[in-house]
């Protein structure tokens, strides 16, 4: 296996792992954070959002009055965000680049109604505010969200599968 292939493989594996953590954090914060709860509650009924990383699959979520819910692995998205390369996704998932910066630098494409993606983007921003240390989050986010629960509690929920 070439060094490049190994690097790409590691990046894809990291993205898969972090994506799962992100979804679990979102599921937990859907109940613990008032802003994310409101976004999930206001989500258009039955609409789905899919996020894809080349070579690492993806996940699909939907918002419900009870919070964000992860759907079956291959569920199509009414709106799909697809990173252009695994390294682009890796930078975002590992906190090297915020979502706004990734958008501004053409790191992903979006299929579907952008207005449906915007609530998800806001929720990811808030979640990053919980998951990353303030020093790092300040580089990624235009404004740090007010935390309503501790970061330790969010990481604990990730270990417990998003509960």
């Amino acid at each position, binding site marked *: 296996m070439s060094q490049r292939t190994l690097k790409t493989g590691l990046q894809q594996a990291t993205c898969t792992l972090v994506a799962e953590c992100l979804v679990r954090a979102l599921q937990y914060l859907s109940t613990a954070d008032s802003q994310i709860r409101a976004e999930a509650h206001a989500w258009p009924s039955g609409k789905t959002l899919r996020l894809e990383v080349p070579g690492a699959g993806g996940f699909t979520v939907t918002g419900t009055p009870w919070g964000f819910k992860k759907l079956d692995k291959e569920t199509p998205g009414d709106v799909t965000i697809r990173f252009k390369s695994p390294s682009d996704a890796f930078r975002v998932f590992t906190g090297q680049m915020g979502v*706004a*910066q990734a958008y*501004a630098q053409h790191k992903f494409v*979006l299929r579907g109604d952008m*207005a449906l993606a915007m609530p998800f983007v806001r929720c990811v921003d808030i979640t990053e505010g919980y998951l990353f240390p303030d020093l790092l989050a300040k580089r990624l986010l235009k404004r740090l969200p007010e935390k309503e629960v501790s970061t330790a509690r969010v990481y604990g929920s990730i270990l417990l599968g998003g509960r």
Partner: protein
Amino acid sequence: MGAYYEFKLPAKILSGSEALEHIPHELNTLGAFRPLLLSDEGLERVGAVKTVLNALAQGGMTAVETFCQIPPDSSIQVVNQVAALFRKLGCDSLIALGGGSVIDTAKGVGMVLAQEGHDLMASAGCEVLPRGKHVPFAAIPTTSGTGSEATIVAVVADPEKKVKMEFLSYHLLPDLAVLDPRMTETLPPRITASTGFDALVHAIEAATCLQRNPVSDAFAEKAMGQIVRALPVAVREGKNRKARMVLANGSLLAGAAFSNSMVGLVHAIGHALGGVCKVAHGDAMTILLPAVMAYNLREGTCRERYSELLLHLAGPEVYAATPAHRRAEEAISFLETLRRELAQACGLPETLSDTGKVRKEDFSAVAKTALNDGAIIVNPAQADYNDIIAILEEVWS
């Protein structure tokens, strides 16, 4: 400025006297001989459509059909209707004569045809579509505002959802951008001012938002200098062809700039005001620009960049005479003065209440819609629901 950027240069530009007469040759070189001409009823009434048809005839070209029923805020339904007409008549190219609504309709039609589909909504998204079938497309702007002749963006209304949908694709760019002084010289002062301010907002937001890059900065900075100098002249002396052409070129440059660096919060709120309250886009831009710039400044962003822009807006003497720590505020003040001057000259609205289309009860719907507008992502400062409500309150009266 980001570590990575992409920039697509604008279409082939035909700019100046008798540019219209070159369209047949240019379309022929693109393999097109049977154009569908799209316009609106107002332009048909003032004779602009006839001027274009005569110019085509001089080059031996006849439009297969002239469709002039495009409304001021075109919709997905109109796009789908025109695409069906194009196929029925066996046309091979599009000529769009009009403001943003007509040109964006043509872009939507081109996209439906290129994807060999029937519904524009199937093409919604950002940078996702393959090129598809190439439909040669000439855009002739009749306002100096949207810059749509040089952008990868199409804004088309979805009346059911009361929103303006944004479509972004590099394949939306027209093949030809045709700037002919005959097409803008009859534009009334009030619309000249409103659309010209829109172009100015394109330049300023392109020069300041997160997606800006060295090439878009060059286009935007040149554009804003041209617009602020030509706009008051074009409003006062509509027949001044020199001012009209400077303004048209400024608008095109601003379009090329924001097409590649996007726009920010002024547009996010402006699109929402258009979708929810039917405020004309240029009017919304005029009303919002200084307040949003002040907001960005208060949030701790843009001070350095707004300071730099003073040079391009007000010129070297004013820039040099202004202390460095005051230049950002002076840039905003310069724009407020320009707006007041235009308001006095032609009745351009300065507040939301001036438009007579907005009620305070609409603020909540406007703010919620603005939050879901893609333009908000690249605004330098974060803006949440309460921030947008505060801006709307500020520009109310």
